């Protein structure tokens, strides 16, 4: 499969999984949720998904699943991108600018700069790499003058792994240097693109090795391909496309709509939505 064939295959699969309400669920037979719906809207430029999403914006401008004590804050950034220009996007961006993770106390065991908060997955908890990178992505695209961009870059600089790249957000635990992952490194690079050249260069160099080691994972390869396309790394993109074709053909991404959404973004026109406005 070439890139357009992958896009067609995963796009077809995504559309077949659309729920009656126009949104997309996180898995087969699951009710629609903001994250997979936002990804489908970006990947497929899908108005139905966009309509579903816009109708789910919370009063404070955020998107996500609130389940009792647990309030998902990780989907607002993707929804801001997917929503398109207008009041919904602006309110989502306002929310992202207001949102801050809780400070953490550094220790010898887990050395980090606890004053740099980043963005959390769940409200009222610590910041992590992927939600911070997603927030940076939305802000660099649509609020390039936001003062929070510097916060996000500082967070990613502080939490990057030794030698470059990112895992979920811990560099060292109990003197053990923790390795970076392809997926989270690529997520950080999507946020950092064009914002901090040195940090981006270092991370991209690490990603070129990481994704090949982690090519068994569809989500990791899809994220990496999106980064290589945005950065214009044609050789890496060609190799990642080949790897993604293999994973899709062999496993159908294990039926994960989020992986399928990222695969469709990485192989289709949706990737341009992540470059610059």
């Amino acid at each position, binding site marked *: 499969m070439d890139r357009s064939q992958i896009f067609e295959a995963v796009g077809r699969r995504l559309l077949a999984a659309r729920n009656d309400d126009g949104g997309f*669920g996180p898995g087969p037979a*699951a009710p629609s949720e903001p994250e997979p719906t936002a990804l489908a809207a970006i990947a497929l430029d899908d108005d139905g998904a966009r309509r579903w999403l816009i109708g789910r914006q919370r009063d404070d401008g955020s998107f996500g699943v609130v389940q*009792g*004590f647990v309030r998902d804050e990780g989907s607002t950034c993707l929804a801001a991108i997917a929503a398109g220009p207008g009041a919904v996007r602006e309110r989502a961006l306002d929310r992202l600018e207001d949102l801050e993770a809780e400070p953490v106390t550094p220790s010898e065991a887990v050395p980090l700069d606890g004053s740099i908060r980043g963005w959390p*997955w769940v409200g009222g908890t610590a910041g992590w790499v992927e939600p911070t990178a997603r927030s940076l992505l939305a802000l660099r695209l649509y609020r390039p003058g936001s003062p929070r961009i510097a916060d996000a870059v500082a967070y990613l600089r502080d939490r990057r792994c030794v030698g470059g790249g990112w895992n979920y957000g811990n560099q060292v*635990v*109990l003197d053990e240097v923790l390795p970076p992952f392809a997926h989270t490194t690529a997520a950080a690079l999507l946020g950092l693109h064009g914002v901090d050249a040195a940090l981006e260069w270092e991370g991209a160099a690490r990603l070129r090795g990481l994704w090949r080691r982690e090519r068994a994972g569809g989500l990791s390869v899809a994220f990496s391909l999106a980064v290589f396309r945005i950065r214009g790394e044609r050789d890496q993109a060609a190799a990642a496309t080949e790897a993604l074709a293999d994973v899709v053909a062999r496993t159908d991404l*294990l039926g994960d709509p989020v992986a399928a959404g990222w695969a469709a973004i990485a192989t289709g026109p949706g990737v341009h939505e992540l470059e610059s406005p």
Partner: protein
Amino acid sequence: MTAAGPDRHGHVPRRGFLKAAGIGLALGTAGAAGLRLGGVASSSGGRWDPEAFLPPDRARVAVLRADGYGGDLEALLLEGLVEIEADVAGASVFLKPNLVEFDPSRPINTDARIVAATAIALRRLGAASVIVGEAPGHRRDLQYVAERAGLIDALAAVDVPFVDLNTEPVRRVRARSSYTPLGELWLPSSVVDADVVISMPKMKTHHWAGVTLSMKNCFGFLPGRIYGWPKNVLHWVGIEHSILDIAAAVRPDYAIVDGIVGMEGNGPISGAAVEAGLVVIGDDVVATDAIAATLMGVDPASIGYLGEAGRFLGQIDRDMIDDRGEEPERAVRPFAPAPLVPA
């Protein structure tokens, strides 16, 4: 499979238990953030629903020897499940291994071969269906971890489905204990719907919780798309408290601990391999974890959440745990402890 009514522990069977724990039955106790375990167990009244937990009855635990993963694991698992009188005939079974990350040099995950062997043994005991699933805490790309850990191929070879618990519809389940302020949990439908749930951890030390066994393994029932990667909210409200509330809500029926090769030192990811050559199988997660801890040279009472769980969730009193295999005290292989990170 018992069709209805309390089991031999006086517990309501899982299906009825989880359904009864459905929406709108908020537990009327205050949040417990700030309660410290780890040797300072709560001394006041129980933080659990007394109607859901009768005093723990006797437990059965089998300690079995295994030279490695290359032997007849299916026969070994079958022997262990028979020894503890596991009742799975006609049941839908959900098997939850421990998948965290992949590092070819470290025994981080429950070995794929023992998971597949368990599935076959369960079928031989008459299980109507077996599903394996997981929602790892660090890695969103479960496909990568499961493939590299060999689980996808191992399960395909025995025709057992694998589900990513991050992608499933979730159902709200009332917490039956209130060590955290969570109040309710969101569990994947395949876990809620299963007649029998088996927690299948790796025998490891853990730098936050002391040891990670079948109770701590319950973190992986919760989907990251709600709780995050990592599931930091569970740490935020207290790891040991979360272990208690999640294990009490899911309430696995059986536990099978993969201690053939375990991990000591800086677990659960960065520790060193220990060829302990043991498999621990029990009909009570607390008792199974207590015996597994003993095998690791760890006093179960020193693990705060385990001691607390012994008050309501399962059996920790050694005199109330029936040995159905090797005598645990004669099979101890001390694990180097984890350097504990202050919570």
